[in-house]
């Protein structure tokens, strides 16, 4: 594992004591990880993708040579600030609930002229390549840092999507007879040393959405929530959901609405 090491001409990091570790953690092991994360959050390489994502957002691109500045993330065309914290939400033009990345991909298709097939071909990051939607969602997410999650539930489709997400969350199947809830539906579960938050509870559901999109130090790659939830399906030995599908938006709606009212800290850093 190669960490984003700080090499300093003058070691600047020794100066200030760390702000107090996150309040959510109780056990000493998690407290250590939180300390570690806090140190690294100060110089999170995720910011590199933020910069790149902003360029991609503003620069005309795709077959139609258009920028994404007319993309409506739910708060009006081009409004990025606060949009991420208020997604997933219902979009009348597609008559479905979309999460941030799904919406960005939709905009890249409609405004810039990309095809879904080319964007969905290899949608997740590797050590050598970060797909553009991942960079863009990192930029968009960063513009909601410090804001409270407020995924809307006013529209009937938003309520229905939440209900669908809940059903998916509790749906047991596969060779392990697993559901998301098997690990994330009860308190005080643990996998190795890693405590597993209970996403059915508001104060723990924030753990599902906090820190995504996130920079993974293992391999040094930028990943989005689309990737993370897709990986949950793999871990459960379920069939792979389609990229930006309603299944993934529904699951995101379920966890985000459960976390509503809590503060989003912006793109994070992951082990």
């Amino acid at each position, binding site marked *: 594992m190669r960490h*984003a*090491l700080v090499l300093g001409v*003058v070691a600047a990091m020794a100066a200030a004591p760390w702000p107090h570790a996150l309040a959510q953690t109780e056990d000493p092991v998690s407290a250590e990880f939180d300390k570690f994360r806090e140190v690294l959050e100060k110089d999170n390489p995720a910011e*590199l993708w933020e910069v790149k994502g902003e360029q991609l957002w503003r620069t005309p691109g795709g077959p139609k040579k258009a920028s994404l500045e007319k993309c409506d993330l739910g708060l009006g065309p081009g409004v990025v600030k606060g949009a991420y914290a208020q997604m997933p939400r219902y979009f009348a033009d597609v008559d479905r609930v979309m999460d941030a990345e799904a919406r960005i991909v939709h905009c890249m298709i409609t405004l810039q002229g990309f095809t879904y097939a080319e964007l969905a071909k290899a949608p997740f990051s590797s050590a050598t390549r970060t797909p553009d939607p991942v960079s863009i969602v990192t930029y968009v997410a960063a513009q909601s840092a410090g804001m409270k999650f407020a995924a809307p539930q006013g529209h009937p489709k938003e309520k229905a999507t939440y209900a669908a997400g809940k059903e998916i969350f509790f749906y047991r199947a596969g060779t392990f007879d697993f559901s998301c809830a098997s690990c994330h539906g009860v308190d005080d579960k643990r996998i190795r040393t890693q405590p597993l938050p209970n996403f059915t509870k508001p104060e723990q559901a924030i753990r599902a959405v906090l820190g995504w999109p996130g920079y993974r130090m293992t391999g040094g790659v930028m990943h989005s929530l689309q990737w993370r939830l897709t990986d949950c399906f793999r871990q459960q030995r379920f069939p792979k959901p389609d990229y930006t599908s309603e299944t993934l938006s529904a699951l995101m709606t379920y966890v985000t609405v459960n976390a509503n009212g809590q503060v989003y800290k912006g793109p994070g850093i992951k082990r």
Partner: protein
Amino acid sequence: MADPMKIRATLQGDVADVRVLMAHPMETGQRKQGDKLVPLHFIQTISAQLNGRTVFNADISQAISRNPVFAFKVKGAKAGDKISVTWTDNKGEKRSDETEVRAGS
């Protein structure tokens, strides 16, 4: 072309605290993909300028991590001064970015 750096320069008294994030794969030449070694690809030199005047040149090796952070302090800086950072790697690729020194909070 290489991806942009993210440079932050904040004033603390007359010292600018500069933190630079660089986007670079920093391949050690020892990582394998399949059975083939991924060739060496790393930043070799970093230089920093304050208003065009070089404040340091650094030679670094492949031992530095992917997407590295580089932090340093510059004495005698004022708000609005220009800090620019340039790196070159072993393939001859180069990237320069510039930022203004901001007053500390």
